[in-house]
């Protein structure tokens, strides 16, 4: 009987002690917010295109960091972004659902533009300029190619063009002798997991 009493007492005391220590630690090491959100946000392409189903890049980053959202929803970021986020989060990479298209640019056919400013309101990065009843123009340097301006245009005068490739931005592809075999296999391997 005393044995049992001792056992219960000692175990109870011990558990209480551990609990107190942990409670104190919880106060000391309290983490405010989630530092992962900014880290993930920094990896996203910031097109704010909403193709991930969230109203922008930051909301998606928040969802990935704290709501366990999948890492493969960013369409413009493509595989590279997916791998980077998966790596950061320490989760298995998943196949991207949609191949990232070549980088695009919006272009306003100015003679058809009626100057309604609807596209200006739609642009998430303020890359379209123009006053009401004036032709609007897309600032090519700032356009992220998100296509959000195409839908609102009442006269369909916005085209999405492929961004021209510059010779200065050209870079060597992997050598054709053994074309990316390893990297390729590795990615396939990861994709297989998903």
């Amino acid at each position: 009987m005393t044995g049992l009493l001792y056992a219960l007492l000692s175990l109870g005391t011990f558990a209480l002690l551990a609990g107190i220590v942990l409670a104190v630690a919880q106060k000391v090491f309290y983490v405010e917010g989630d530092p992962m959100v900014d880290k993930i946000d920094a990896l996203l392409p910031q097109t704010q295109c909403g193709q991930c189903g969230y109203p922008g890049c930051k909301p998606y980053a928040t969802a990935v960091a704290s709501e366990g959202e999948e890492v493969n929803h960013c369409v413009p970021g493509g595989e590279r972004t997916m791998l980077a986020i998966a790596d950061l989060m320490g989760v298995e990479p998943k196949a991207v659902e949609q191949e990232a298209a070549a980088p695009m640019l919006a272009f306003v056919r100015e003679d058809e533009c009626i100057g309604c400013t609807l596209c200006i309101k739609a642009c998430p990065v303020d890359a379209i300029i123009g006053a009401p009843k004036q032709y609007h123009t897309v600032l090519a340097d700032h356009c992220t190619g998100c296509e959000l301006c195409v839908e609102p245009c009442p006269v369909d005068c916005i085209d999405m063009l492929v961004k021209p490739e510059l010779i200065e931005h050209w870079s060597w592809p992997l050598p054709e002798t053994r074309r990316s075999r390893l990297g390729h296999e590795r990615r396939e391997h990861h994709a297989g997991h998903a």
Partner: protein
Amino acid sequence: MLVMLSSPHMHGGDSLRMMMLTVILALLPAAAVSVYLFGWLAVLLILVCMLSCLATEAVCLKLMGKSLTTLLDNSAALTGLLLALTLPALTPWWMAVVGSIFAIVLGKQVYGGLGYNIFNPALSARVILLISFPLQMTTWIIPMSAATPVVNLYDLSTCLTLFFAGPDALKLGLDAISMASPLGHVKTEWTLGVPVADALAHYHYSYLGAFLGTEAGSIGETSVLALLIGGVFLMARHSITWHIPFSYLATVAVLAALFSGIDPDHFAPPMFHLFAGGLMLCAFFMATDPVSSPVTPTGQIVFGIGCGVLTWSIRSFGGYPEGAMFSVLLMNCAVPLIDHYFRPRVYGHESGRKS
């Protein structure tokens, strides 16, 4: 078809095949000595190992749907030769075959083939054999018994019987033709409390014999002279650099000198360590295997020192009489980290490493 490749468009002419062939050539003196010492047994062992390595490699390549031309890079043949040279003369044929298969499959092909293996294939096979068959792997035939009356190793049929059917078929007791290796002898005596010098005297150990190759050991590791010739040839042909062999041997020698100076009864002298066992073979041919050793000179020196410390420690304190093979394998594990931390100083950078 024009394959667009970046510069340079000129090549120095070195090739993998030639590098591997150079190592095989460098091993010829040791192989020749082994044939002289162990007669047809050595020939059979070398042939079986090389052929089974080549065959295993061929099967692996076939299974993975790769071109068989890879066989021509000579690396499988080299692995076979190296493995054979680390085996005792009385190794039965099936053990040699099993070892070769281990070497090629577990040592090399599972990692993706030549260039990707982490452990030296021949050594890993040798260690697997040692741990699986400790008795056979430590039964040393008396060298020069080629011409002794007990058994004539220069006689092909005798050797065929020995090799394929074992000593029992000749009604030979193992004791009649085998003896302990110097390292094994010293270790046994030492555990019995006999001072090293006395143990060596009982053994009739001769430094000259060890240098030329007449002390007991695996077929290719007995002759220090032959291995030195091969090592110097490799360095002259720029197949290996001095860093690993020198730092390895120097570390063993320094440690041995230090401790045998302090306590000569317990620790063997440096010359004994340098000449005994597989040290020379490991230092010149195993530790310098480029695939499983560090890339940079500083890294190689660190690697050599590590091998030296481990070899001497295992020999002096460990359960196994010989530590060279284990120490090279152990250091193989550390190669990626050594490569990372001992990179050369980059032009224009301070000597301190960032990471």
